[in-house]
């Protein structure tokens, strides 16, 4: 038996796990499913908290970085990023 990591990345509407999911990505280290860009129109969970309730472990969250003076209105990448993992055991 070996262990493999599955990674779920959720982008939320505001920086709290109870917030609605607005963007998502899944990378499956078990090789059971190949995820790719544009493969689902509905998020896997309505909120970040729902991912926790389904057994995903949070291992990284984006920091709050104050807007750089003079650049307060510049918009760019999605801000509220949360990385989750699940470890699966099996014969891969």
């Amino acid at each position, binding site marked *: 038996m070996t262990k493999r990591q599955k990674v779920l990345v959720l982008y939320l*509407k*505001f920086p709290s796990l109870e917030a609605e999911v607005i*963007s998502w990505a899944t990378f499956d280290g078990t090789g059971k499913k190949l995820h*790719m*860009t*544009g493969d689902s129109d509905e998020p896997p969970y309505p909120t970040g908290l729902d991912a926790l309730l389904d057994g995903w472990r949070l291992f990284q969250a984006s920091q709050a970085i104050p807007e750089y003076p003079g650049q307060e*209105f510049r*918009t760019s*990448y*999605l801000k509220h990023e949360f990385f989750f993992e699940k470890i699966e055991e099996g014969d891969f």
Partner: protein
Amino acid sequence: MPKLLSTEQMAEFANSGCLFFEGLIDEDINREFLNDIGHTNIDEVDNIQQYFQNIKSSSSIPRIPAGTPLKDAYPLNSPLEKIFKNEIVSGAINSLVGSKTVVDHQFLHLTFPSKYYDRANQRQMSQVNHQDSTIDPRTTFDIQLFYFPTAVTKDMGGTRYHPGTHLRIVNEMGIAKYQNIKGQKNIICKAGTIGIFHSGLWHGAGVNFSDDIRYMFKVRLQPKEKQELLWDIDKKYRPLPNRALYWTDENQEKTINDILMQSHPWQEADTNRLDKINTIKFWRQLTGNKNLDIDYWLTRIENELY
């Protein structure tokens, strides 16, 4: 005679970063374009590279040096020249980037069905989300015009795009990690459809799970004049007066400002407000009116008394 965009269409473009003209180009020109590139029955296409090389060597699509004026870019009476001469197409181009616009680049994108990947033992993946070219902090914007000579079905993986992302300044594939974004759309359309994207719009090609090749001809156009009231040559546009905020009448009529201030499902609660502010700044630029505001977003923060 070019048919310029309406103020409503310009507002839609300012808010969403895209416009579509479904089935605009007629069947004869679509067929002429397909014949010109040597489109053939899928069963006769053995090799992707060879098919592509044949198109490049025999079609009338010219090699256009970057910076060539659009009006000089395509051979007279070629299918592409007819498409750019279409009154709706030329009107939209003139409205957004002006009549002196130049060609940045063009490309004929072909997306092949699964069997070619299976045969080559390659993984068939969609294209990741990206913003074209490179990081672009300009106020000036380019447009990318797309032409679909055949119908695009859901199976064909038509271009994925994210309305309202065009004013976010990102660096090309720096957005590739967003596999899916709420509100994402795919271009599913009739043959002859024309789409126009603001050059900043996030997008990517889908996977073609159909049995046919998907074609998409793209040209990027750059303006050579200020993009102010180009659609309104009589300069009639006047901003609307302030309206009540939050404590409002439910039955108030929808206006241009409602088109401009439309939210998108992927926007964060906080940054959504900055997206609105940037749309108003973009509308100031397009109308040439440096003082206009919508829903007090800019007036509020410009009221600096110290």
